[in-house]
């Protein structure tokens, strides 16, 4: 599984031998690879006008390109804002709730993200083919797809430790611009240009996986909520800045504490573990039918819905498991 940003083909259909060679060496003799472009074919074509573009078929003969348009940026932020508004609207009658939920399109984004990740996973697991994922910049939807695909495929990513490693690798070190993306969240009136809840979308997809495979993730919802909180505002330096370079310039490692260090302390750790966890060596294929994708109430209705009875249920589950 590879990731990158878009090739700078441009309007004149430039070629780059080194790039072609690089992709060529990845494939074995007679093998075929897949490129998943997270932009629509239209958008990818238009990108050529501003210097970007797609891999021309003739130059990358063993790679088959597929487009899976995933929304990012402004569109995703608007979606997030509409959802939060629908959830906190007290006057909303039963008649209109589902329409508003659908109008936000958030669940459609979840469905699309999971489908694309599954597609990538399927290429790897079923086709035994390599996959290259990229969008435009390679810092948003690309990371969403590669991180989710790994969760689906690799049981070690589903452990608490493995998941942290996945986040470090696929989001933090890969250069997702947290500082720009997670500035103001959904309630802020000033809608920053760079703001977009990609990381939240990722966490939502992880939550969907945990709902469909409640025994297969070593961590629980609490971890996902904590990560969401810390991405936006944190006492720790883990999600600061926009890239490793910036973090190095700001001397983040020298002047702040790591979220992981705190989470992994024995007295903290147990809060984030899933009592139902049972290591599952198989690939977990989620269903992306609409009935299978649900609103993440624990996050979006966190302060609206009373959680007492559900918390009690979890405590009971813990009790049953610990009793054993």
């Amino acid at each position, binding site marked *: 599984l590879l990731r990158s940003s878009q090739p700078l083909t441009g309007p004149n259909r430039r070629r780059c031998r080194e790039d072609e060679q690089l992709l060529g060496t990845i494939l074995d003799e007679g093998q075929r690879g897949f490129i998943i472009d997270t932009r629509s074919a239209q958008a990818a074509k238009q990108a050529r006008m501003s210097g970007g573009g797609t891999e021309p078929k003739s130059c990358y003969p063993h790679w088959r390109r597929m487009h899976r348009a995933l929304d990012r940026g402004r569109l995703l932020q608007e979606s997030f804002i509409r959802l939060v508004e629908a959830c906190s609207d007290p006057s909303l009658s039963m008649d209109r709730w589902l329409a508003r939920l659908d109008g936000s399109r958030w669940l459609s984004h979840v469905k699309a993200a999971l489908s694309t990740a599954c597609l990538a996973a399927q290429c790897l697991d079923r086709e035994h083919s390599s996959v290259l994922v990229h969008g435009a910049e390679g810092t948003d939807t690309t990371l969403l797809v590669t991180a989710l695909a790994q969760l689906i495929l690799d049981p070690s990513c589903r452990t608490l430790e493995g998941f942290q490693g996945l986040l470090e690798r696929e989001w933090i070190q890969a250069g997702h611009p947290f500082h720009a993306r997670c500035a103001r969240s959904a309630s802020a009136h000033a809608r920053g240009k760079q703001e977009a809840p990609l990381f939240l979308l990722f966490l939502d997809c992880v939550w969907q996986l945990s709902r469909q495979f409640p*025994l297969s993730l070593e961590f629980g919802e609490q971890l996902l909520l904590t990560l969401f909180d810390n991405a936006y505002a944190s006492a720790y330096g883990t999600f600061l800045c926009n890239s490793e370079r910036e973090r190095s310039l700001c001397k983040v490692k020298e002047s702040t504490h790591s979220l992981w260090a705190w989470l992994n302390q024995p007295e903290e750790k147990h809060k984030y573990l899933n009592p139902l966890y049972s290591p599952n060596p198989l690939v977990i294929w989620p269903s992306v*039918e609409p009935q299978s994708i649900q609103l993440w109430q624990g996050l979006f209705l966190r302060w609206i819905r009373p959680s007492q009875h559900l918390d*009690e249920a979890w405590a009971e589950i813990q009790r*049953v498991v610990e009793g054993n």
Partner: protein
Amino acid sequence: MEHIRMPKVENVRLLDRLSSRRAVVGTLYLTATHVIFVENGSETRKETWVLHSQISSIEKQATTATGCPLLIRCKNFQVIQLVIPQERDCHDVYISLIRLARPVKYEELYCFSFNPKLGKEEREQGWKLVDLNEEYNRMGVPNNYWQISDVNRDYGVCDSYPTEVYVPKSATAHIIVGSSKFRSRRRFPALSYYCKGNNASICRSSQPLSGFSARCLEDEQMLQAIRKANPGSDFIYVVDTRPKLNAMANRAAGKGYENEDNYSNIKFQFIGIENIHVMRNSLQKMLEVCELKSPSMSDFLWGLENSGWLKHIKAIMDAGIFIAKAVAEEGVSVLVHCSDGWDRTAQVCSVASLLLDPYYRTMKGFMVLIEKDWVSFGHKFNHRYGNLDGDPKEISPVIDQFIECVWQLMEQFPCAFEFNERFLIHIQHHIYSCQFGNFLCNSQKERRELKIRERTYSLWAHLWKNRADYLNPVYRSDHSQTQGTLHPQIAPCNFLYKFWSGMYNRFEKGLHPRQSVTDYLMAVKEETQQLEEELEVLQERLANLQKSQSGDNKVKSKQQDRSEQFGLYTSSNSLANTPQEYSKDLKSFPSWSPSQGDEDSALILTQDNLKSSDPDLSANSDQESGVEDLSCRSPSGGGCLPSEDSGKDSDEAVFLAG
């Protein structure tokens, strides 16, 4: 058997609803009670059994090159798509099924031939499991305020009521009879639930025949009697569960609702729940959404909203909450009615009782609740659920809605119910299956005439026998959630009502969470219990041995061996599955040539690839996919759910995605 033109057809294909490419070939059999599809060739010879009673509709579709498609829709929401090679055969099957699915006599129903091989005594005992007299006693009646009346002992007053009803002490036979003449279908006000703690009660009836201005002294006295039976309050609520417009329209037909001017000390309240026709259409629309092939999120959400289904569920729940509040918090008695007092009234009374009394949240209590408010009070099971061929306008998912309300509550209060989702699903299944005699006919009178108890078996006994499968692992009778009244949130609460895919997409295993938390926790609990028992035994033995002071090395090693035997139960590893078709563009299955199609087409899914992650069914703890449960296969065998156990397993989770 005379209705079966074609008892056996070979080379029939059973299509997977979601992936029309994935078909199994087998033989179709028609028996007097079931349609059976047996897969060819595969080692497991998987069978799909469908009871004729479950068949809701059969659609013969246009013949294609591959054969003649037949679509069977079931009342338990199973949808079976068959393709029969010869058009003639298909027609014969179609005609046979049409007749078989529409019995004209009760004797044609499965319950009269079903034989679980229990002795006569056991059958009787099964019927005695739920005893309503015991239940009323448990509630605390008869007492100073309430008495049993046998005025209806020969069904002379009301033929849809039971022979024994509970009425206020001050309601004489004269008052009861007078009131019954002023009520639609003669369904006079009778006790449904009595709250020991504060003497408030829930009574139920049908609408009064008040028209625009008619009055009836006895009926007014009846309501007074109900009020007087609760000294703690000086008025009662009268709740009409219809929309105001409908109730008013009824006045023109000489019926209507209670006028506050005529009935002293009542507070009248409309709680608009729509009628059976609206509900039937609502379900229809929702099922259409479920049948969409690879719907987008929007298709689904819009379709669901358009059906209005969840809105109706909420309306029923709100009514139940209102009544429960009136009884528990205000200590005021409530008289509930709709038009005829056997649909919405039943729903609302039973929801309210469930909220009020934790007993009804236990397994036994729930059976009692259904027996009381649905069976004994004359809910028209035959008409509503089509035991026999009848007027399609009478069909309506009334009890389904009640069962869904219970499920919605279970989702909000996971620790409060002794039973689990499977219990509800199986009950719904059997209401339509007519495998047991509990839900036949339209009234107690009809059931007694048919001698149901002597000729059929009770579902309750069957469920009770298998109760280990229906337990909720996080239920604890001493938990705070299980005590007292449940208080569901009233607002904001739109999001609290979820689509119940476990029921409406029941047979599409790929849609549901692939791992059952319930089953896992039950297994853990069982194991814990076994370990604890074992520990006790060993401790005893150790104590004995220590007394006699023999070498304890042997004892220690025995302990270790035992605990190794009871290794931690892991059911989850085998619950994998095959990926869906995550790409719209998959053109052919099973093989796909890379040179075909354009860049956007996706993947090769070959049979070999799929086999590599076949679920290991033998280690799967989920009962529903247990293909090897052979005891359910024959009509004379154990009475479980053949069509479910041999239905689709998680292997077939290959379907199109948007």
